[in-house]
């Protein structure tokens, strides 16, 4: 049984008279420790999948199995606990708390996480040991995203969910972030799921799930993913 298994997941939004189907029977699996990429154009429904996977949203139908537990049936509180204990998020716009230093932003996560890692070590691992006391405003975009990743990793999550983590970054920085994520998956065995519309990233993933028009079009397993350095876009 796969670590992550989404079965026949539907998500519909009511917009006035119309019902918009964001996810129309999504089904896929991701193995533990995979660096998975969910790829699709804007509005394909991939963010919805991520939100549902991260316990921020609930599907209207279907099962979401995470490590043998179907979170689709969880209550809000259980979902919160799931997010707290098992999920790390990285957003396109970092979402750091501007009034907290880099370290404090990480601590924000470790404060509540039961199996948190050492903050300094995590920050070091993302290459920010020299900027721990800086406020987000004092950091570059890449640095901020590293802080965000550090914050996600510090919880020692089962799942690391990244929503367009490079979307707001320049090419080089984006690459370094992707590298960090890939390494994380490799080195810590954390299952990393990255959502992007940038198909250039696909080759570096262990598994690529193509979503278009609210459906999974194709799932491609990449037995030999490429290093980030080899990728250009």
């Amino acid at each position, binding site marked *: 049984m796969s670590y992550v298994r989404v079965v026949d997941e539907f998500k519909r939004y009511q917009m006035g008279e119309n019902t918009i189907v964001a996810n129309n029977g999504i089904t896929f699996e991701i193995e533990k420790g995979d660096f998975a990429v969910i790829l699709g154009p804007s509005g394909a429904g991939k963010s919805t999948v991520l939100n549902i996977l991260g316990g921020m949203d609930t599907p209207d139908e279907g099962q979401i199995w995470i490590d043998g537990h179907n979170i689709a049936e969880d209550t809000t509180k259980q979902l919160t606990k799931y997010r*707290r204990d098992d*999920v790390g998020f990285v957003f396109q716009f970092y*979402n*750091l708390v501007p*009034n907290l230093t880099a370290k404090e932003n990480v601590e924000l996560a470790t404060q*509540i996480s039961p199996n948190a890692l050492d903050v300094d070590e995590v920050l070091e691992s993302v290459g920010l040991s020299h900027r721990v006391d800086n406020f987000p405003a004092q950091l570059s975009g890449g640095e901020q995203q590293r802080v965000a990743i550090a914050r996600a990793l510090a919880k020692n999550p089962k799942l690391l969910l990244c929503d367009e983590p490079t979307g*707001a970054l320049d090419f080089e920085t984006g690459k370094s972030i992707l590298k960090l994520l890939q390494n994380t998956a490799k080195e810590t065995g954390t299952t990393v799921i990255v959502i992007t519309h940038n198909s250039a990233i696909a080759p570096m993933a262990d598994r690529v799930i193509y979503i278009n028009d609210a459906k999974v079009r194709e799932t491609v397993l990449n037995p030999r993913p490429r290093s980030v350095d080899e990728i250009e876009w």
Partner: protein
Amino acid sequence: MAKKAALRKLIIKEIWTSKARFFSILILIFLGVGFFSGLQATGPNMKNTADQYFEQYNLHDFHVQSTMGLEEEELELIAGHSGVEQIEAGYSRDVLAGESRLVMKLIGYRDDLEINQYVVNNGRLPEHSGEIALDNHESIRALYSIGDEITIYPENSDTDLTEDFNQTTFEVVGFVTSPRFITEESRGQTSIGRGNLDAFAVILEDDFDLPVYTDLFAKFTKLSGESMYSEDYQNLAAQYKSEIESELDEYGPERIAEIREEAEEELAEAEAEIADGRTELAEAKKELNDARQELDEGWTELEDGENELAQARQDLEQGEQEYKDGLATFEREIADGERQLAEGRTELENQQPVVEESRRELEQGEAELASARREIEAQLELLTTQQAEVNRLRTELTELFEVPVDVIPEETQAEIVQETATISLGEQTLANLLQAYFAGELPADPIQAGLSQLEAELSGGITQLNEGLNEVEEGEAEVAAGRAELEAGQADLDAARQLIAEQQGRLERERASAEAELAAARRELDQGWRDYESGRVELEDARQTLTDGEIEYEAGLATFEAEQADAIAEIEEGEAEIAEARAELADLEEPTYYSATRHDIGAMVEYADNAGRLSDLASIFPVVFFAIAALVTLTTITRMIEEQRGEIGTFKALGYSNLAVSLKFYVYAISASAVGTIVGLLFGYLILPQIIFNAYRMLYNLPDIELSNYWLYTLISAGISLFSTVLTAWYVLRVDLKSHPAVLMRPRAPKSGKRILLERITPIWNRLNFIEKVTARNLFRYKQRMLMTVLGIAGCAALIVTGFGLKDAVGGMGDLQFGRVIQYDAMVILDQDATDEEASAYNELIEGNAEIEDHLAIYQAQYEVSETGVNTQDVSLIVPLNAEQLPQFIQLRDRVSKESYSLSDQGAVVSEKLADLFSVEPGDSLTITNADNESFEVEIAHITENYTGHYLYMNEAVYHEAIGDEPLESNADLLKYDQDVAWEDQLSEQLMQEEKVVTTTFYGRVIDTFNDSMESLNVVVVVLIVAAAGLAFVVLYNLTNINVSERIRELSTIKVLGFYDGEVTMYIYRENLILTAMGIIVGGFMGRILHVFVLATAAMDNMMFAPDLHWSSYLYAAVLTFIFSSFVMWIMHRKLKGVDMIEALKSNE
């Protein structure tokens, strides 16, 4: 226009999406405007209300009283003043009334009196004698209802109310309110009882029996329709007053002369009455004496009568005996007489036949003699006649014979022939012969010779006859002698018979008379017996009458003796009174006139002061709200503009003018403040004045408040509210509007995090856990908002502190005054004119009551203190007769230092508020004035804690030095005990029966009523708390709302990170709690300042609030503020739960 329509839509949408902010501004403006306009309007409204009330019920402008009452002359004098529109005279008198001896002012009523009309709250005004309409005061209504009887009593036993009134018992027919009496606490001063009127009451003017008017009320033409609180009114009234006063002062001496004259007349009348009384008394005594004498005489007479009766009986019995004897004698004598008579009669019968025989013989002889005589006499007579005839004829014939025969007339011849037919001459008759003569046949001579022969024959026959007659006469003489003898015998017999008959008659007569006599005697005796009987009955009656008379007399005597004492006492009293009246008359001074305008009535002025105080309050409370409203608007608009930077940029880029771009924000600000202002004005003008006025109505008897609005306050309110919002909007927009659209369209660089000061204090910072550090940093990140939150919360807390502090201060005043200052439990007002016996009876009652722990006799009197610029104050002077005991009854001490004072010879001790009002320090002197307008200077030694009323305490030495030499007599007694109300009722009853006691006041009840009346302040507290809650809520909600919306990404982030809902709420609310705590601390200080300010403005002249704030006020403020804060937290918690974290995280700002 499409543009405008679009804009309008935009604005409506904006308002709708940010309704919480919009309403926050609106509510704060509402609170500010509401309180400002309301408090400002209440003062003028209160004055208006009073003015309209006074106008409607025609309250006098001017009131005159005099020490001697008032008469028509004064009325006319005042009516003559040019300003006077209307003047009326009336009667009033202060008395004690009812079981509880309320001090009551009775006022005369007549339905055509126009000045000072009454509001009939219940029932009606008196229409008939003996009816009364009572004061509508709550305390009176609690005691009496319509149909009850109420009796009035004089202030002391020397006064007779019936002199002044025709009725002393009245039936309650209604309850009324008078514009003359507007304070609830007291109906004014009086010279009787405790010196304070409890109530007024209205009776018919006809039920008064006063010789002079007691009051004159006037209205002035120029003052009608004028607000009594206007300066014009005050000045004009003062001018009229001084003019009329000087006129009255001139009139005084005239009046006195008049009074002396009248009084003398009355005294003379009274003396005459007394003399009459004495006379009557003497007459009564004399009547009694006469009655005694009559009775005594009656008794004597009765005795005499009885004696007489006994005598009569004896006489009667004797008469009875005599009667019996007389009857016997009579019977015997009658029998003797009858026997003698019978013997005489028998003898007489024997004699009679002898006499009868002799008589018969005599009668025979007589009869023979008689017949013999008759024969003789008959012969004689015949012969004599013949002789005479013959003689005549002879004569006649002689004559005739001389005349020739032929001349003799035939008739004469016939006549003579006829006459001589019977005379015979020898064989022939003469007639024949004559015939023959005539015939001439015979001559005359033969005839003559025949006649002469005849004559001779006749004379011889006569002589023979005479001789026979002599013989007869001799026989007759013999017979006559025999008859004489017989007649004598017969006479003897007859005499004897006569005698017997006489004897018989006499005997008969005697018998008859004796019998009559006896019968008379019998009748007399019988009458005697009857008389005796009736006499006896009469005597019995007389005895009865006398006995009755005696009883009557005894009764009369008893009555007389009983009444005599009273009558004498009365007479003596009357004499004493007359003497007194004379003395008084001698002492009579000129009348003093007291005139007063409305402004001389303390209550009226104080009411205006109270109304004025509201304006003072109006200047502080709304400032809090307006300031916070401005701050909240600032934050809100700032936030709004920040959120819409992009939009502003876009509009600017599209070429909209600055004005067009900013219009939306101005309209937003203006509509919030406009709606807030309008609602606030409605609340301020319509509701708040009523709430406040209703609280004041506990102190004043006034009709419902007259609501009105004031353009000035409306403009100020609108101005300030627009200013505080629009200006803020302008201030915030100013910066953004200067920026280039490009800058605006870019997201504003997030406000960078900063180290805060606290971090540099490592020992503290390190101790904080992570969340606390975060909180701390966040707190200082938004200083403006922090300041505002703290201020808002502080305002809220301050209002609550003030509210509860006010309640404590006012409510606690009763406990302080009656618990701490006044240690005694009851005050008994004593009649100084009571007799020694009455006084000792009272003392026995008090001393004999084991429950009464102690008592202190005092002398108390009412004085006034006045000074320009300060309202005239009433002060109670208290002189304990035993100064050492005073501390057990009244605590004299400094409020702050708690240093206790005792009364010394150095001076008096004055209550704190009075000292404050007149700026008196120990060592200064205070001028007090009594009811007779005499002023005294009193040295002040100490100032003592006191909360209600004004008091001046001094010992006797100080009194004598400062006020009067007369020895002081106690007129009140302070009692101390520890008992319940039931016991007090019992004591009260006992006391009321004492002549010495005038009234009793129980302080336990005073505290209760006092506290009850202060309940009204709860309204103020509630208003303040509601306002505070509104403030706290609006501020917290709005600021938290802004905080949340501003930090929504942050919140979403931590939510995504797995913070539970509670943790999320606390993440942001921890700051609010800290700010709330800070606000409470700041609010505590602010509240204290506000409290002192409010107390200073709200305190009335005769009250002092303890300015101490009880810790509970702070506690309540803290707890309530936390509750409000928690409420906002709860709302926020719900809101945060619903935050869509995905949405927030999706986009860049």
